[in-house]
Structure formats: C-alpha cells, structure tokens
C-alpha cells in the first residue's frame, strides 16, 4: 500500500486534477473531504470518457464504434473546455471498489485484476483514506516474499 498519496477535494476543478495527473504521471487519485474521509476516485478513465459523444456514454448498448466519424479534434477540444471548470464532485466515481488495511492478499489481487489499476485503501469503520493499492504494490509485496529466480517449493 502507498501511504503518501496525492488527493483531490470534491471542490477542486477537473482542470486542477488534469494538471496534477499530468505533473505526477499518475492516472487517478482518491477524492477526500476536509477530514480525509474517502469520497470517490477521479481519474483519466472517467475524464476521457466525458470527452466522448453522449451516444457512446449512455450505457453498454451505446455506440461501440466511432471509426466512421472523422475530424473530431474540435469536438474533443470543446468537450474539454466545458469540463475543465467543473468540480470534481460532478465527475468522481463514488462506486469504485475499495479495500481495507486488513484485506487478504488474494482478495487484494482479485480486486486489482477485476476492478482497476488503482484501488483506494479505506478504513472499514471510519471510511478514512489510508492509502492506495496499485499493481506495483503487489509486485513489491511478492518480491519481498518470494525469490522470482528460485522455483517455489512444492507444497505436496
């Protein structure tokens, strides 16, 4: 788990978040209130999705191909212009799956594989943000506990 994480406030603008993501080369960050209580995640997937036409975004049965639409730079620019001053609270993903500090390794790997690249770690009772879990965290954990060059002992 990474404990030192950059967070956004629900009142920050999408422009602030984009600057932050670009400067620190990360793809998403947790959103917390003034008391460090977890509110949701804001990241490039959500923001980029909003640059697409509404016909794609409506749901899984929306358009699944835009190959035939050409010269779309203007449309992307105008969607971005509209979005940069909007608050994070309008766009954050409050349903992102979370884990807690005592989540077993297997479940943590399962959540990462199934639910995204960065998973917030949240206190089960208080919902306070404790950090984030990334694939690299799991890799470090594996590296600390296993020797990748030596075949593991057979359990049987």
């Amino acid at each position, binding site marked *: 788990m990474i404990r030192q994480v950059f967070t956004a406030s629900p009142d920050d603008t999408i422009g602030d978040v984009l600057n932050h993501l670009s400067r620190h080369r990360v793809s998403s960050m947790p959103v917390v209130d003034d008391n460090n209580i977890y509110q949701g995640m804001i990241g490039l997937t959500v923001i980029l999705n909003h640059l697409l036409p509404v016909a794609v*975004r*409506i749901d899984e049965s929306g358009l699944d191909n835009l190959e*035939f639409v050409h010269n779309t730079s203007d449309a992307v620019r105008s969607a971005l212009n509209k979005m940069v001053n909007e608050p994070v609270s309008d766009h954050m993903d409050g349903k992102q799956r979370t884990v807690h500090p005592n989540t077993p390794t297997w479940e943590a790997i399962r959540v990462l594989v199934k639910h995204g690249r960065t998973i917030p770690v949240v206190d089960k009772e208080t919902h306070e943000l404790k950090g984030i879990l990334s694939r690299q965290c799991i890799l470090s954990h594996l590296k600390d506990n296993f020797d990748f060059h030596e075949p593991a002992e057979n359990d049987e």
Partner: protein
Amino acid sequence: MNVSHGNASDFTPNVIFGGDPLIVATAILCFAYIFIITEKINRAIIALLGAGLMVLTGVLNQEAAIRGVDFNTLALLAGMMGIVAITKRSGIFQYVAVLSAKLVKGNPRALLVVLPLITAVFSALLDNVTTVMLIVPITLLLCEQLKLRAYPYLVAQIFASNIGGMATLIGDPPNILIGSAVNLSFMDFVYNIGPASVILFILTTIFFDVVWGRKLETTDKARSHLQNYNEKEAIKDVPLLIKSLFTLGLVLFGFTVGHHYGVQPGTSALFGAAFLLLLDNIGYSAEDQAHRVQDALSEIEWETIFFFLGLFILVYGVEVAGLLDILATELLAFTEGDLQMTGMVIIWVSAVASAIVDNIPFVATMIPLIESMAPTFGGEAGLMPLWWCLSLGACLGGNGSLIGASANVMVASYAERAGQRISFIKFLKLGFPLMLATVAIASVYAWFMFLT
C-alpha cells in the same frame, strides 16, 4: 383457429378451501394488473408470482398452466432477439443511419423524415425495442454533431416504431400475440394493416414537419462535418454482415412462405437464430464457442420472455375460471352483437387502454375474450375484422403516453441518460391527441376495409 392455447373447458378448477375459481382468479389478475400499472415492482416478477398463485390456489394445475403458454410467441421473440444480438455487432444499423444522413446532406428537416423512416422499416422487420436501442444512439450522435435538439427526432422515432411495427406479424408485440393465437401469416398483416401503417406514417411525418421540421436549423460547418463521415467504416465485420443478412432473409422467407406449410413463425425465428449461431461459431474452439453462444443468448431480453410466460398463465387462469366469457357477453350485450359497433369499441378501448397500461397484458387478455365471441359472429372466420381492430388500436394506442409501449420507455430512458429528458406530461400533451387522431384515421380505415 387457436393454435397454442388449450381448450379452456378441458380443465376443471379445484380451488383451495372450496373457493369460487372465478373470484380467486379475478382477484389474482386484478392485483397483478394493479402492480403492473403502478410499476413499483418489476412486471416479470408480478406476472410469474401471479401465474404461480393461479396454480397454487388450484385455479389451474401445472399441466393446465403449461397449456396456457403460447410457446410460438416465446420462440418468435427469443429467436428474433438472438438474431439481432448477433447482427448488430456487424454495424449495419449505424451504416444505414449514417448513409441516410449523408444522402440528405445533414439537412435537419430531411433528417426528421429519414431517421423515423429507418426506424419504421426496421421496426416492421424486427422487434420495436431492439430497433430503438439500435437507432437512438446513432440519432444522438448525429444530433450532437449537428448541434440539434434530439427531442423532436426521438419523439418522431417513438411514433415511427409503433406505426412501423404495426405493419407486420413480428413488428409489434400485440401483433405477435394476435398472429400466434389466430394463426395469421406475416403477409396477412402486411396486406391488411400495412396500408394503414404507410398512410399514418406519412401523416405523422407531415405533422412533425409542421411542428418542428421547418424550424430546425444547423450550421453549414456542422453539415460539412457530417459529410466527412465514412459510413463504410461503420461496418465492423463484413463476413458477419453477410451471414446475418442471409439469415434474416431466410427467416423473413420462412415467415412469408412457412405459413402455407404449417411452419409457425416461432420455428422460423428460433431456427434462424440457431443457424446464425452456427455460422458465427464455425472454426472456433469448444471453449470459445461456449463463451460466444453464452454472450449472444444473454442478450435476449429474458425479463420480457418471462413476463410473457407469466402473463399467459395469468390470462389462462381467468379464461378457465370463466371471467373472459362473462366480459365478452357483457361487451356483446353493450354492442348488441353488431360487428361494426363491436369493432369500433375494440379499436377505441384498445387504444386508450394501451396508452395507459402496457399493451401486452391488455392484448393477451383481449385475445381469449374476442375468441369467445365466435358464435355471435358466425364462427372464427367472422372474427377477422375484430382482430385487425385489436391490432390497430393496441399498436397505435402505444403512442398515447411515454409508458404506452416498451419502445417508448426505452427511448425515454436513453434520452434521460443523454441529458435530453422527455417529460411524461410534455409527451402526453402532444402524444395523446396525436394518438387519438391516428386512431380516428385507423377507425375510418377499419370501417371501410373490414367492417363494411
């Protein structure tokens, strides 16, 4: 000829605690209708619970309940849904919409004709709900690009889907139900209802042009942008497109010709779905095939299929208990057994009822009710005018409100998610009077075509 329903007289209800089957069955049906109308609980749950109660209370037993299920309708719905689930992956629907938009050079007024026209044609050949699910996203894209309000287009498409669907056996659920119960062919509907469908489509299109079309404006820049679309790139899978169109052609051939050889539409549709699955899976490993077939079948709207299943049993329960005979006798007493009067009552009551409640349960109830009028009108052949009146009324009535037909609900939910909400009242103010006008025209049509 009733092909699927068992004879109501071959089962005698044996209700628990010696209750009166008529009262018990009517109570179950009324409660089910109330819950279906209020939409607080999903309609499939209600229909299945009601069907279960019909059996558990002894109005029906399990064998009788199964006799009440019209499996031809279920097979037709599931088969067509399966075929469309595979076909839509080819991108054909986007291709047609983009090509049409380019042909009219993105003219907003002309688009208000061509997009509903595409909707009407697809609705006649496919299920309405599926059609609007395919056409609404591309409509939203075109409107966004042309900086147009989507509202006029979506409302016109609702009308087009219900009016277009009316033209064929498979286009609209009421027709599927009527056609299956009375053993009508695909072409029976095309010949009898098709002309009304064409007339009403033209008239509503003129109406929408007057109300909205003339005032719609866009910029030349947006229009030239649309001309840069390459519709050929909307086709994602050419081999799949060929397989799908071949299968659809085969199924439509089955619908038109099969009737003469005793092949029911359900058989054609389900066989077509299986055939397309075969074409789509040749060359894949057993494991891949399992995934692909599972994906295609999961796109069938099982909620709708199970709703129909429950509904058939519910209606069969009240039929066996004798309620529908009583209602038919009352209706005939009111119309004094006059065919013209009965036809007009059916068309108008169906239209208004279908605007208020889902037209599927209404038509499912009306079918056995009309069947029991056969002796009054000189046998089953004498009932034909009434079937056309039921079809016209129930299909057109679907336009009367935003909940009148499943396709309307689907368009409204898409519009809401796209931030272009269609308000219930706003739609009602326009849709209900317009629906009444179309029913008035349909009544004149029915009067001269079937009743005199």
